[in-house]
């Protein structure tokens, strides 16, 4: 059940529609003099730095970012103090959906970077369905 499973793609949203994406980061402790931000790079390569606030349940941090539905994005969580970077997560790649929900996993010298791509298709590749119908797809499948 990957995030590109067509079962979980809203058929009423055409590729590229703008949606408000809810961002939620769990299992993180941020001190009073620190800031938590999500840095999102959209499909056009524009980076947005959005401050995250404590959620109502006080167990996680949340933010809202406007993205184009199903377009390739990358994002990273960073903790800053007086504008200086203190901690950061790995840069993750996905497609813009209605929610980004992650557990905090800081990158450290002794911490191997997690596998970044949940969706290895960065938007430059055709969708599996399109690929199956393409000339190259048919040749690969049937040897035509």
């Amino acid at each position: 059940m990957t995030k590109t499973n067509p079962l979980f793609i809203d058929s009423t949203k055409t590729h590229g529609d703008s949606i408000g994406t809810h961002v939620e980061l769990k299992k993180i402790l941020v001190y009073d003099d620190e800031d938590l931000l999500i840095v999102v790079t959209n499909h056009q390569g524009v980076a947005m730095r959005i401050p995250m606030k404590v959620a109502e349940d006080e167990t996680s941090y949340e933010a809202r970012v406007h993205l184009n539905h199903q377009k390739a994005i990358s994002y990273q969580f960073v903790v800053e103090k007086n504008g200086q970077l203190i901690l950061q997560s790995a840069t993750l790649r996905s497609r813009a959906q209605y929610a980004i929900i992650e557990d905090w996993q800081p990158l450290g010298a002794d911490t191997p970077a997690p596998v970044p791509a949940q969706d290895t298709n960065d938007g430059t590749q055709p969708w599996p369905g399109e690929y199956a119908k393409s000339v190259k797809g048919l040749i690969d499948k049937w040897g035509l």
Partner: protein
Amino acid sequence: MSIISVINQKGGVAKTTTSLNVASSWAAQGKKVLLIDLDPQSSATKAVFGDREFEKTIYDVIMGHAQAEDAIVSSDVFGIDVIPAEIMLSGVDLQLAAHFGREQILRRKLEPLNRRYDAILIDCSPSLGLMTINALLASKDIIIPICPEYFSLKGIDLILATLQNIRTGLGYKVGIRGVVITRYRDRKVAKDVIRQVREHYQLNVYSNYIPDSIAVEEAHHNHSPVHKYAPRSPASKAYMDLSKELWL
């Protein structure tokens, strides 16, 4: 009015038995209940009506050939209304693959019934397909029946992953009302699994466990709810108590 899906992607955990007996127990307590059979195997339909065939089923409703109210059939024995299923439902995923808004067909079809019932229960198929997604998007909450074995925890993992995917991909938050323990036997493994569900998954486990009982199976074969077939059996009392607990 609540719409609740009874779901577990693991088979054989008494989804249908739980749906039927909870629905019927609610009806016995004076509630107006609709049960929707969304499993192509039609287990709930067969348990209530035997081999009877229906002119209109949930398949016709989903495909737009009928309105939901036209497919409702009443069962005097169970005291509930049912929208029956049929095997054609297994082909719906392909038939609706290119249908605009295919994920929310059931949600839209059930809207006219909102004021007619106190509760609508949806008996889901064990597979994760378009119909299960439709059930989840139509529901406010879900109930997860599990047999307390180690493999049952895998079923919970699958459900949680599905709910997360629905939230991220489709933007809907479906709540987990709680976990129903079925086919309970007083064994260490059962207690371990229940403890893990509470502590590791942080899920609400209903305190009325349904005991492993032949009366439940016999009631099924006799097309009767267990509270009518064997009213003095422990399973009958457990389902009655569970239905009250579920209604809170």
